[in-house]
């Protein structure tokens, strides 16, 4: 037996081609642009691509993109579409912000006066037309012909005083509703600059004790019914993820037996707004929230 064994070349691929699109026709990436290595997409695009890795199945064949690669393709495209749309939205919002401003109180009064004045003119004009119409006896109205057996018209040719009053009242009522609804919309779109205490409407059923070396504003908001439940304040977070959470927040019972919220702000805690949720200690059900704003001294 010869010792020179026949050696095959290494195969170009080691897995079967299981990709339907490349099996039947050209690969499915013809329309795609950008990098062709899926790992590049994960690195190139935003945070969501990292999440895409959880979607990936086992590695595909070496002959073409696998199912998991299609998944990455979708994430990459999704990120690109989202980025473009957000940029366009931002530009549009900037344009709007440059051109819009809340009208002053004077402007609101002016608008209201203008609306009411125009509305009054409209009503007066309508009534005038009504009077004219019935005085002129419109030629297109054919008078009833008793000889031909045609009955009387279902309305008088000249309006009685009652009808005129009804029309006038109706017009004024509708016009007033219209103006009021316009003003309501205006108030909604341009709210008056006054403190908005709506978020404090819920009655806080616990006192708050804040220990802080800096000015600190604390807002506790509890849902109805929370006062009878065991409460737990979870750690509070800033929207800036690099800042540490505010940890030392807890519900305690005072010497008088009443429950209070104790907040201690460390001296090195960065100034910012911190938000957290108040839960039922046993069930974890959210029952309110807590906002603590630490200001610079």
């Amino acid at each position, binding site marked *: 037996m010869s010792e020179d064994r026949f050696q095959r070349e290494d195969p170009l691929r080691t897995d079967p081609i299981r990709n339907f*699109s490349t099996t039947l026709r050209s690969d*499915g990436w013809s*329309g795609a642009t950008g990098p062709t290595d899926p790992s590049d997409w994960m690195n190139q695009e935003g945070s969501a691509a990292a999440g895409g890795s959880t979607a*990936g199945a086992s590695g595909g064949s070496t002959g073409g993109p696998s199912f*998991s690669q299609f998944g990455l393709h*979708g994430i990459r495209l999704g990120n690109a*579409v989202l980025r473009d749309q957000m940029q366009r939205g931002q530009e549009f919002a900037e344009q709007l912000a440059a051109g819009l401003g809340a009208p002053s109180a004077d402007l609101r009064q002016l608008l209201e006066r203008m609306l009411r004045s125009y509305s009054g003119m409209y009503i007066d004009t309508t009534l005038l037309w009504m009077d004219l119409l019935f005085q002129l006896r419109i030629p297109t109205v054919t008078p009833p012909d008793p000889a031909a057996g045609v009955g009387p018209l279902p309305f008088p040719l000249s309006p009685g005083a009652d009808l005129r009053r009804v029309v006038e009242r109706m017009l004024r009522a509708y016009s007033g509703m219209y103006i009021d609804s316009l003003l309501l919309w205006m108030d909604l779109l341009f709210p008056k600059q006054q403190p908005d205490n709506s978020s404090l409407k819920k009655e806080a059923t616990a006192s708050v004790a804040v220990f802080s070396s800096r000015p600190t504003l604390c807002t506790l908001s509890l849902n109805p019914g929370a006062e009878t439940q065991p409460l737990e304040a979870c750690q509070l977070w800033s929207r800036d993820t690099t800042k540490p959470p505010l940890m030392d927040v807890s519900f305690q019972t005072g010497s008088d037996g009443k429950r209070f919220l104790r907040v201690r702000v460390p001296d090195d805690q960065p100034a910012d707004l911190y938000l957290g949720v*108040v839960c039922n200690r046993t069930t974890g059900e959210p029952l309110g*929230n807590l906002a603590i704003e630490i200001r610079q001294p």
Partner: protein
Amino acid sequence: MPSHNPSIPPGLVPAVLQEYGELTRAALERYLPAQEPRRYLYNLVADYPRRGGKALRPSLCLATARAFGAAPQEALFAAVFIELFHNASLVLDDIQDESEERRGTPALHVQHGIPLALNAGNMLLLLSLRPLIESQLQLGQQLTLRILKETERAASELAEGQALELGWRRDNTMGLGDEDYLEMVLKKTCWTGMIYPTLVGALIGTRDAWAELTPFLRFGFFLGAAFQIQDDVLNLVGDARYGKELDGDVREGKRSLPMIHLLREAALAERDRLVDFLGRPRAARGDGEVRWVRGLMDRYGSIEYAQSIAAGLAGAALHEHAQAFGRLPASRDKTFVEALVPWVLTRVS
């Protein structure tokens, strides 16, 4: 299929959808006028909202707000708006798409004709604004204004997305890429369906104190895109529980993701025939032709392709969920929002 939290209790999503769906539907009855003209308007207005549905959108809003500690009543105004607005858009959508069924029953325009259905849809749009206007009593003017601004944005995005899809069909547009599809889906489905409910829920839950809302937007987009692609797939492979006309998207010539894939992958002669098929009016697209298109999708793996894209997007949605909700304490509502991600891929209706 993306991996997901094994601690999600089975049946959580259907249970929460049912609970929040009932809460929303009970509250929205107040905004459906019981007055004349019933036969030509208000009975029609109340038809779609009373047909039920998944109530996914209002549930997403309520759950997000609650995960941040808000009481359900605080987010209920927004939830009712979302459900009424969604139903109004369905009425108009069915007319524009010439759809025959909605939730297993003939579409409103099939029952009453286009003019009355169109008018009822417009009225429902108008009525949907009432709970939002009333919400200022509970949420205050500033937060209500903020929500109204988001509402205007979402409604505009919906109209733009619908315009893209309808325009593509009218002009028999070819050469669309997956990115065109995703842009259309972002506008048409994601914004009002997932982004808006999540954003508004977060706004209410945080009293608009949390300026950084981008993670909620990103979560809504990826969840909504996965949802819509699964909808495209269900339209082709759904069973009796699906509730819409099977292969209806093919018959309507919709540029769904499987269709865009097929147009890209089909052989030249097949593509020419497909272009001709899509260029005809709906009535001229016969059953045999629809079956032929459907067979091509099987042959070219267009459905599997769409499913794999949806799985990738769902994975991204899970990641964004961690960004947006990760720092909140564990709660049923937070888990529900996370559980929606695998649910959109496994749902059958």
